[in-house]
């Protein structure tokens, strides 16, 4: 993360700054995903659903059917239609899905911003013929005065 920040601050070339930004972004994404980890107890946040013999041991061992605690089951009419009814999974048995979702969003937005940033960089290069920041500043100032 700090490498990315350093790249963004100290590098002179715009493309290198963008690389720094990408590293920074990826580091933060990694951090969020690591927040979601529940080591030793947890599985991936996908419930077992492939027939009867597919059963992650931990998830089933922890699985509790405390229907009363969760409440709100009465308004799910479709729930009763199933012969067995889905078991309520134990939260400790699965990794936290929320950070994963947020980071999926962040990755997609990262792609969009990076694409747009590259486009703007390309335009700058076409206009000024350089991507070095100091030369760029000189040329912009010269344009302003002239």
């Amino acid at each position: 993360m700090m490498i990315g920040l350093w790249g963004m601050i100290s590098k002179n070339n715009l493309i290198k700054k963008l690389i720094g930004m990408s590293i920074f972004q990826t580091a933060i994404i990694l951090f969020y995903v690591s927040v979601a980890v529940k080591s030793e107890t947890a599985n991936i946040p996908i419930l077992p659903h492939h027939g009867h013999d597919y059963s992650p041991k931990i998830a089933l061992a922890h699985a509790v059917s405390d229907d009363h605690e969760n409440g709100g089951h009465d308004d799910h009419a479709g729930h009763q239609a199933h012969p067995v009814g889905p078991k309520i999974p134990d939260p400790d048995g699965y990794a936290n899905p929320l950070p994963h979702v947020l980071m999926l969003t962040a990755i997609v937005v990262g792609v969009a911003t990076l694409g747009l940033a590259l486009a703007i960089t390309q335009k700058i290069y076409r206009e000024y013929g350089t991507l070095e920041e100091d030369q760029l500043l000189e040329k912009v100032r010269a344009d302003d005065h002239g």
Partner: protein
Amino acid sequence: MKKLAGIVVFTVGLILLYGVSSLDDFPSWGTPDSPANKSPLSQYFIKNTIVDTEVPNMVTAVLADYRGYDTMFETVVIFVAGLGIFAVVRVFEHGGASRVVTADTKPDIIITNTCRLLIPLIQLFALYVLAHGHSSPGGGFQGGVIMGASFILVALAWDLDIALKRFSEKQAFICSGIGILIYAGFGLASVFLGEEFLNYGIIHKILPGVDSPEMARYYAMLGVEIGVMFTVTSIMFLIYGLLATRGKMTAGL
């Protein structure tokens, strides 16, 4: 300047390290008892996605259902990014015929034949990733990117003109718009049936063969993921095309 930047970054890094390691209120790595993992929201998601939506993959369920607005406007962000890149770099050349075909721009026979073999498989895999986003890792964004990569592969192996014959710029923009409209259409359908925007459960009244709101959510999620895939595929291809040709959209690299 560089030294100053180095000092600043080093200090910030030290402060962060101090915050992570030596203060007591930062939970240890991977514990199920950390505040993020104990928050009622994520516990609700883990417990109730299968009851509410019949979707085993919680990430997909949260993405496309509980956080439907987020994902919808994320798709819009992609679309706007495509439009922005188009607006920034696109140049139109009316003279035409500026393209010179030389011997070394001819596509290589080994590469093209390998791509002929690979591209159908890549696209099939993209559809698989899309359709199995409910029960295994995957979904609209991932499938869309893979699908977009297959078009980019066409552009790389032959050249962009060949790829544009298959999937022109105009078609790409129309497809990306259609993707958002599909997404918003599912939202609007639930409005007209008497629920909130993007509350898909009610759609079971018009979907044939679906009798419970949960299954309606399941299929509506598949629908919005298809919409997302349309947008992502076409915008990925457009971003590549525009950036690789400096906005000329001919020939390519």
